[in-house]
């Protein structure tokens, strides 16, 4: 679910499209846009304080088999929230392995490639200090 929360809506839909025979589902909670108050800690480690809100869209649905799926995604994309809930529900069925391979693994790989690309750029800007003259050597 954490992975689905961070995936852009169109990427999620594209992955779902790769799955054949996506079952219909009954909406228990229609996609709803809301805010979540993000908290930080004073000094990074201390007591919590309110930093500001972020937009989140959530959705809940039930498959014909009775499995209930919940989706929470960052942003205001209602279709993404519905997709996320559908994937969550499917993961509770006997199609879990198929969904994992077709949807979750490609998304995880993409996310990890994206964060690795940033980390690699950051690593290239790491400062290597070298000592020019040390007092005691003179």
């Amino acid at each position, binding site marked *: 679910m954490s992975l689905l929360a961070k995936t852009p809506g169109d990427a999620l839909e594209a992955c779902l499209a790769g799955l054949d025979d996506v079952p219909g589902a009954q909406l228990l909670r229609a996609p709803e846009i809301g805010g*979540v108050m993000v908290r930080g800690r004073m000094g990074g480690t*201390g*007591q919590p304080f309110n930093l500001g*809100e*972020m937009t989140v869209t959530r959705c809940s649905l039930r498959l014909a088999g009775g499995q209930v799926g919940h989706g929470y995604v*960052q942003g205001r994309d209602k279709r993404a929230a519905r997709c996320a809930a559908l994937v969550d529900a499917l993961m509770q069925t006997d199609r879990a392995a198929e969904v994992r391979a077709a949807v979750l693994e490609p998304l995880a790989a993409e996310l990890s490639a994206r964060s690795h690309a940033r980390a690699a750029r950051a690593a290239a800007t790491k400062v290597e200090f070298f000592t020019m003259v040390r007092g005691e050597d003179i």
Partner: protein
Amino acid sequence: MYVAVKGGERAIENAHAWLAEERRGDLAVAELSVAQIREQLRLAVNRVMAEGSLYDPDLAALAIKQARGDLIEAIFLVRAYRTTLPRFGASRPVETGDMACDRRISATFKDAPGGQVLGPTFDYTHRLMDFALAAEGEDAGAGPEVPRGVPTEEPVPHITEFLNRDGMIEREPDGNDEPPDLTRAPLEFPADRPLRLQNLTRGDEGFLLGLAYSTQRGYARSHAFVGELRVGTVAVEMDIPELGFAIEIGEVDLTECETVNQFKGSKTEPPQFTRGYGLVFGMSERKAIAMALVDRALRTRELGEDNLGAPAQDEEFVLAHSDNVQATGFLEHIKLPHYVDFQSELELVRRLRREAALAASAQQAEAVE
């Protein structure tokens, strides 16, 4: 006498139609897309998210477009939208120690574990105009390949934790008390530090910059070092009631600044370094450093320091004037019709002048006698 007047509807409508035309500008120039603003004016987007107090880059970019680049107007739009959102809950406090850092520097320790990582910074640029960016038609974006390094898995610990081990710096009291929320309850004084930090993180960057600068110039000087400045991405986790456990509901870019400040000790505290803290949405370095300096200046009461009467130490002055939407609203309302108010002022001044003239002529008459 109070006179109600009506009118101006057509003038207002026409003004707004013209505004829309002016927003679009010259039709011969391509229209800006929201995605272009989000990607290419990201620091403006960051400021609107931080001061609008809502993390949503697309929404902030749209607000900037609608506001014709007036960032305070854009912040106003975001704040207004924010009030329409149902609140799903609050996140767990983000762990900035686990941040995927784009940038991380320390002005106090050269050889900090995790290293000094510059990231995409304006620092060390020569501030010379780059006319290559003005070249039309060619996509300068491709440019030379950005060098890549090999990311290490080593942790990037908070630098102040090293000082903490030796007791050289004050301990940050931990806990999980429910923090006050100034979007739900009006600001009251005295304000505790969690409330002050919420106010500062959404406060106007220019106002905080000026106040922070005043502390450096000697108004409640507390000689700050930037112990650490980090910019990067953190995961946001929230407990989901229907699941019964916490999941990540997204990630946000943050800038965090921890200052280490000189402190000679007070009646209640031993001599040790003290802390100032800044945490802001997006890459907003100037704001995060300013926030940390002002946070430190406002801690006079809890550290038992002498209040020198400096503006940055006065929490009511700082917190009540930091919000640019509130300030703009009050400042600009005076341009709206005040015809009746002014009419009464006019009557008053005329009467006073009449009375003063009468008194003067009476005095003159006395002098002649």
